[in-house]
């Protein structure tokens, strides 16, 4: 059907780099270069790998959030869930290494359950996911704090914490390969694999057009629910890593839902669903953390970081929405009152799906 010449391919790569799909990689590259200029140590393998280790939890959460957003929903409960899992680990594992495995299993079961609840309420009761997960965010955190009397008894056993803290030591060049780096790699690989699987593709198509998916015989409720379960499970993994990296504290995981959404959006993923690449979402997380590190090295007062983050966020999204305009290749007729464009009053009154006009504006 079409010829692929090398030139063609290069053109494609160039195009990808400036397309919203690839812009995030450009941004990330620029930031990393800037950091290295300010502090050459950063480029040393040992330092670099540490950076990756630090980003791992955020990136994993972003990957989870990606699947929810691409399916056309939001998950605001991720931050609370991370905190919950951290505290659970602290309280249930305690100093007894032998409990690690059972507790780990419990945590994943718990995470899956939270995702299931989010998903079912969203799909079956048709409550906007933003509200569902907002409610979950409040209830979950409050519940955990109540259960623990505000703070966990203590850090879990070191064996458990090694997952997030330790790694394979004595590696030439790198010095250490942290477990969390390997886990991030695994999660990312799994995510890429999943989004190429029939189910993954179906999930994306469902986010693109709910009705079409329904008429194609897709179990929409299950597809979306599983997206929520994926995000909850990724929050669980992040929790396991963080309890190792940082230890137990009610503030661990605070604000992760917004960090994740920000990262995903930086990755050029369109809110409202059906559009975006999981790798770019992960890259968004790296770009965000790189930004913070840069500001640290540059000695910018930590109070100003929010402001910079805000500016970058707006610019990045403005850029991608500007380049997402329809190409003029095909002369598409001007606004025509065809049913495709104008939902029938009767049906449009029902529309609660986020991909309805308003959210994709």
């Amino acid at each position, binding site marked *: 059907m079409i010829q692929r010449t090398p030139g063609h391919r290069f053109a494609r790569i160039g195009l990808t780099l400036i397309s919203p799909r690839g812009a995030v990689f450009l941004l990330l590259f620029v930031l990393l270069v800037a950091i290295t200029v300010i502090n050459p140590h950063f480029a040393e393998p040992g330092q670099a790998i540490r950076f990756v280790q630090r980003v791992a939890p955020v990136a994993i959460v972003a990957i989870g959030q990606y699947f929810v957003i691409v399916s056309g929903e939001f998950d605001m409960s991720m931050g609370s869930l991370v905190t919950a899992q951290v505290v659970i680990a602290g309280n249930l594992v305690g100093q007894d290494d032998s409990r690690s495995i059972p507790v780990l299993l419990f945590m994943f079961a718990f995470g899956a359950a939270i995702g299931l609840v989010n998903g079912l309420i969203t799909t079956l009761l048709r409550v906007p996911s933003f509200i569902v997960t907002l409610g979950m965010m409040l209830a979950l955190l409050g519940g955990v704090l109540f259960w623990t009397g505000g703070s966990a008894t203590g850090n879990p056993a070191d064996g458990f914490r090694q997952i997030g803290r330790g790694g394979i030591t004595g590696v030439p060049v790198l010095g250490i390969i942290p477990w969390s780096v390997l886990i991030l790699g695994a999660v990312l690989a799994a995510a890429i694999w999943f989004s190429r699987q029939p189910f993954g593709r179906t999930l994306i*198509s469902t986010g693109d*057009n709910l009705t079409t*998916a329904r008429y*194609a*015989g897709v179990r929409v409720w299950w597809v979306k629910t599983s997206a929520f379960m994926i995000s909850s499970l990724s929050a669980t993994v992040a929790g396991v890593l963080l309890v190792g990296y940082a230890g137990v504290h009610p503030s661990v995981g605070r604000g992760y839902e917004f960090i994740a959404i920000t990262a995903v959006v930086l990755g050029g993923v369109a809110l409202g669903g059906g559009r975006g690449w999981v790798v770019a979402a992960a890259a968004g997380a790296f770009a965000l953390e790189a930004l913070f590190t840069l500001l640290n090295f540059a000695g910018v007062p930590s109070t100003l970081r929010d402001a910079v983050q805000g500016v970058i966020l707006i610019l990045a999204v403005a850029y991608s929405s500007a380049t997402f305009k329809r190409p003029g290749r095909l002369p598409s007729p*001007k606004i025509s009152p065809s049913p495709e464009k104008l939902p*029938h*009053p009767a049906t449009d*009154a029902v529309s609660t799906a986020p991909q309805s006009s308003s959210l994709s504006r």
Partner: protein
Amino acid sequence: MTSQVPILSAQGLSKRFFGVTVLDDVSLDLYPGSVHGLVGENGAGKSTLMKIMAGVYESDSGQVLLDGRAVRYTHPVQAMRDGVATVFQEFNLLPERSVAQNVFLGREPRRAGFVDNREMGRATAALLAELGIDFIDPASRVGTLCVAEQQIVEITKALSFDARVISMDEPTAALAGNEVELLYGIVRRLQKRNVAILYVSHRLEEVFDLCDTITVLKDGALVSTGPASELDTDELVRRMVGRSISTFYPARVAGTETGDIRLAVAGGGNAYVADVDLELRSGEIVGLAGLQGSGRTELAEALFGAVPLTAGTIAVDGAALSMNSPRRAVRAGIALVTEDRKAQGLALNQSVLDNALLVIRGVFPARTDEVRRKVPGVLSSLEVSSRGTGQEVQYLSGGNQQKLVLAKWLATEPRIVIFDEPTRGIDVGAKIAVYQLMRELALAGVAILMISSELPEVIGMSDRILVMHDGRITAELPAGSSEETVMLAATGHSPVTPTGDVPVEVARG
């Protein structure tokens, strides 16, 4: 009372989409107080002509004169401000807003800078009164009105620009028999107000009832314009159809035999359809005719489990099963090529491949790889032209999109295929491809139900024609029945009785 000066005249209008000529040098004059009928098959160019006059499209060549002065509209509102209003088939209404708010959207009357709701309500009521409508409350939410009432709101909206020209695209399409009479009344009143009316309709007897001039279009070109008095139904149909159907519609492939019952519905019914008894046999193409809103699409949705039947039974290949979700239907080997491609058939931001594999991945994931290998073959056999299977579907032409939808379903090797308006808005080439495909499917023993508003299509393709009216199957006609017979059945073949209870009836909606 028809004056000799045209208010609006179109001169030599032409329009092409994606290289397909949809309108070719068409001219037409509208006179005050006259109703001008515009007829032709689907795709003859009626809607395009209307949309050009309404400022939705711009013509590639030719011009539109209003009161003898050339006008070029780039936005419908410009046309409306000039008193050239259009009532489209699809409603442009906000269901959450009141009738008055919809009628005056963007032009809310103001006093001292503030919207004068009382005035707005009053004005709306007045307009409705002019149309002789007393049963629509300007304050009621449009979402709570029935289709006929919404149609009236649309007309009122047009009238509120105190339009001197009103084009109506299939105004009765969505209306039940008794409501048609209501519309007649409205049209006649408009006529009395010296409004020039362009009336587009498939219902020939309507055209004869209302119009004093009739223009016939075919394949985007003008066939004839003349007084209605000089025409009769047969002549009109001859001019519309022109070409003998057989040459256009591929004949049944030799060796196709009608086999056992694939799909059987007995006493089926739900909120939208009633008393449906229906049998589809393998190798058979059954046409389902009927006016828009007669429940054809609803029947399709019921058979497909999208809006399940609440009464009656469905059996596939003799095995009864409760068809309560599209998934069930797909698993049972049923495919539904929906009426609305973009809203129900495709994921526009996804690639050609993703769309082709949509159903397989969603319902038979195990077969994905095997099918993926076939996809390119299927696509090329359907002559889908795209920049590779990676291209996003939104950039394909309507015809290619439709072919892709077919490919999507072929991938599932269905045994029953329901086509809902399969050739709507696609070019002739694509149409023929679709017809070919249907024949081949029939040869392969697939049972086919084809819903269509194009009578020639129904007649040309069907082995058997079912006609729906008002949510019920009202007639079963043999292949090759005449358009008139079908149309008669479709309009409920009971001459509409003008009675006072019409308002009451509608008020119920």
